[in-house]
């Protein structure tokens, strides 16, 4: 699964994307965040205020309760500030 990070999420994790083999027990976006946090303090820092982190599956906004199913691309980012 391709995971992308943007803006300060990217800066805190220290990379803009990675390919990870996610265990079968990870069902939802929220599960994925919990699993990522177990990988190290940089992830814990990025997801410290989970409720503020936006997520997208295959380039569509989703909430944290959304199942991953066979998502090929998932992204995490702060609330958008363009325009």
């Amino acid at each position, binding site marked *: 699964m391709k995971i992308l990070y*943007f803006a300060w999420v990217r800066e805190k994790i220290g990379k803009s994307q990675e390919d990870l083999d996610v265990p079968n027990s990870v069902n939802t976006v929220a599960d994925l965040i919990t699993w990522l946090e177990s990988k190290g303090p940089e992830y814990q820092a990025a997801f410290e205020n989970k409720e503020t982190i936006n997520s997208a599956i295959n380039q569509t906004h989703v909430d944290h309760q959304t199942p991953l199913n066979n998502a090929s691309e998932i992204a995490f980012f*702060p609330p958008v*500030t363009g*325009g």
Partner: protein
Amino acid sequence: MTIRIQTEDFDITKEINALKEDRSKQGKQDVGAIVTFTGTVRDMAKKDKASKTPISSMSLEHYPGMTEKELSDISEEANKRWPLLGTTIIHRIGDLSPGDNIVLVITLSSHRHAAFEAADFLMDFLKSKAPFWKKEQPLEGDANWVDARDSDKQALSRWEKQN
């Protein structure tokens, strides 16, 4: 429907003329109203709730692929809601200075209220849905990611109520 993400600047007159030409190529001279919105970089940034600080530059990051998809969804939705005869959304990325253009939205219609409302709608949705992030460099100190505004979320609810 024109959607572009680019580092270079845009020329509003040129972009309007391109839309008018697209329409007249279809044998129609039915455009009566053209609304444009241009967002530009201000030289002061919000430091905290009470104070501002001067900035020297701003950089814009986006999510390639998703950005185009979101902007195209927003445009399609506007075309469903109003009788539009052309729309353009251009958003710049990369490094910008105070005074620089950031974003351009253009709407064409036969009558003015459709063009005004659709441009207003496109900006409200772009502000809350399109995956862009601004980082501001103050004159002194470290660069800061801009915080999202509650007022932008509230702006969006104006349109959701109409459904």
